[in-house]
């Protein structure tokens, strides 16, 4: 069964599985890591998981019908996401830097002035 899965032609589902693995990795990273840099990496993983989805949805080869749901739109979207991810990382890192300069750490759990 596993073999059959491996041997079958690559379809959009395989890409989606990769995407979801990335997504889950990102979430786990966010949950488990306490270092803000690591958490931001987790965010990047999530975004890239989504990006894989988008790109996969825009690739006609992966679909039996010969046409993809998103076509160029998806790819453009992916490009935008990359840019935004960069911007986001910049902002987040800037804030992290500020946090570091204030608390001397980038461990989010060290911030304890505010509590729910």
């Amino acid at each position: 069964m596993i073999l059959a899965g491996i041997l079958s032609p690559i379809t959009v589902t395989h890409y989606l599985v990769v995407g979801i693995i990335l997504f889950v990795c990102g979430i786990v990273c966010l949950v488990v890591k306490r270092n803000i840099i690591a958490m931001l990496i987790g965010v990047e993983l999530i975004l890239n998981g989504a990006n894989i989805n988008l790109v996969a949805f825009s690739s006609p080869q992966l679909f039996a019908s010969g046409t993809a749901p998103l076509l160029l739109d998806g790819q453009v979207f992916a490009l935008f996401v990359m840019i935004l991810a960069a911007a986001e990382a910049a902002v987040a890192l800037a804030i992290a830097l500020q946090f570091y300069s204030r608390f001397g750490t980038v461990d989010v759990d060290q911030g304890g002035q505010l509590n729910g």
Partner: protein
Amino acid sequence: MNELLELITQIEQNLAVSVRLWIPEICLVVTAIALLLQRMVFPAWRRGASFIMFVGSVAALAVLIWQVAGQSNAAGSVGAFLDVLRLDQLAAFLRGLILLFAVLFSVLTWLTHWPRIEDRGEFYVLFLGSVIGMCTMVAAENLLLVFLGMEMASLPSYILAGFEKRERRAGEAAMKFAVFGAAMAGVMLYGLSLLGGSLGSLDLPTMRANLTALASHRDLHGHGLSLILGTLMVVAGIGFKLSAVPFHFWLPDVFEGAAAEVGVFLSVISKAAALGLLTRLCLTLLGTDQASAAGLPGPLIPFVVGTLSLLAAVTCTYGNLAAYGQTNFKRLLGYSTIAHAGYLVMPVAAAVAALPVSQETARWAVASMLFYLVVYMFMNIVAFAGAAFLSRGAPGEKIENYSGLVRTAPGFVICLAITLFSLVGLPPLGGFAGKFAIFASLASAQLWALLVVAAVNTVFSLFYYVRVVKVMVLDPAAQSLSFSLPLSSPQGMFLVLTTAPVVLLGILWQPVFDLVCRAAGCQ
């Protein structure tokens, strides 16, 4: 070749129209640039930033009003920039609201002398960036623009949250906000990709058409999972912006840590934009007319209604209850914001619920949401402006520090009390009119359970708002209190001017309601 030429011409024409309609936002961009230049060119002009900001936002608002007023009613809806933006009455109204807020915000920051003069230019630029993002959000008709708008609106707000550099809490709040926001953006993006993929387009109307097609094939089950997961992730992303439970954790922290001015920004237009987006997504994806809405897969609408109702009910109840124990006024307002997000989502749920039955009812529900937004904006401006004035003038932000405030600043307390009672929803104040409209929309959509929840919440909310009033009015004056704010001062006049609509909207709300009706497209 001819076709391509035709297409290019079409695009050109569309661009020309689009740019013309986008002038208000361009105004903002120009303002932002001017602000940046001012720091370089006229660094000595101390009040320059505020002035430029004020002029720029007023100009943007004026242009928008002029454009809307010039429009004939029928030609309300334009697909701008090759249909990625839908510049209809709803978008125009929400953009107007956001720009109006920008004007008031510039005045408020002018009056509170915050942030410091040297930082103010940057502050405004970031704010303007966020505003432009919000304007995009409320008009977006393409998933790409949805995401773009969200990010444009969010990114500057992370920085704004941490803008008070000397405040340790602000940094912490900003970091939490940023990380959490980025994560939620990722989740939403993932949801968007799933939705776009399974519905075969990023363009909302096309997606809508595909959805009907899917429904007719009756093999929804295959796509069902990704549709649901996508929907939920998108709702989670919007819920984050709305600070809906359970995506609300960031908000009280940020509100407590950040300056009150940032708080009002986050609590008012951030919500307005997210609600506009939510409304547009729901109404576009789930049906533009009665017949097609009825053709949707059976349980889809109940599912969305259920999700939104649950979200609204939980948010509202949680916000109101959690506000009880708060001792910090700004944090209390944060929870009040959460609760109001719940109230505001309710009419959207009602609108979706009414879609299969009556398009008109759905539009009424949207109108009631918009109306409450207007009232809510004024109420929150007064409340947060009050908090801002207090945090600069009174010792500490704890509510008990304000005891007996009515002795030293009666006019101020009266304005604040009116606003707080309006937030409870007591007639004849605007909050009541807004709540009444929302309740009416729930009743008309037959969402009785939600109506009961909303009504019960009104009672819940009584306590903590009244507690603030009680401390300020009934309690004996604190020894150390030296805060005073005569209504004749500029700050006082600002409060009066923003409290006046709160009262007026409770008595004469027909004109504004006509406006929101027009925006929502009901007769």
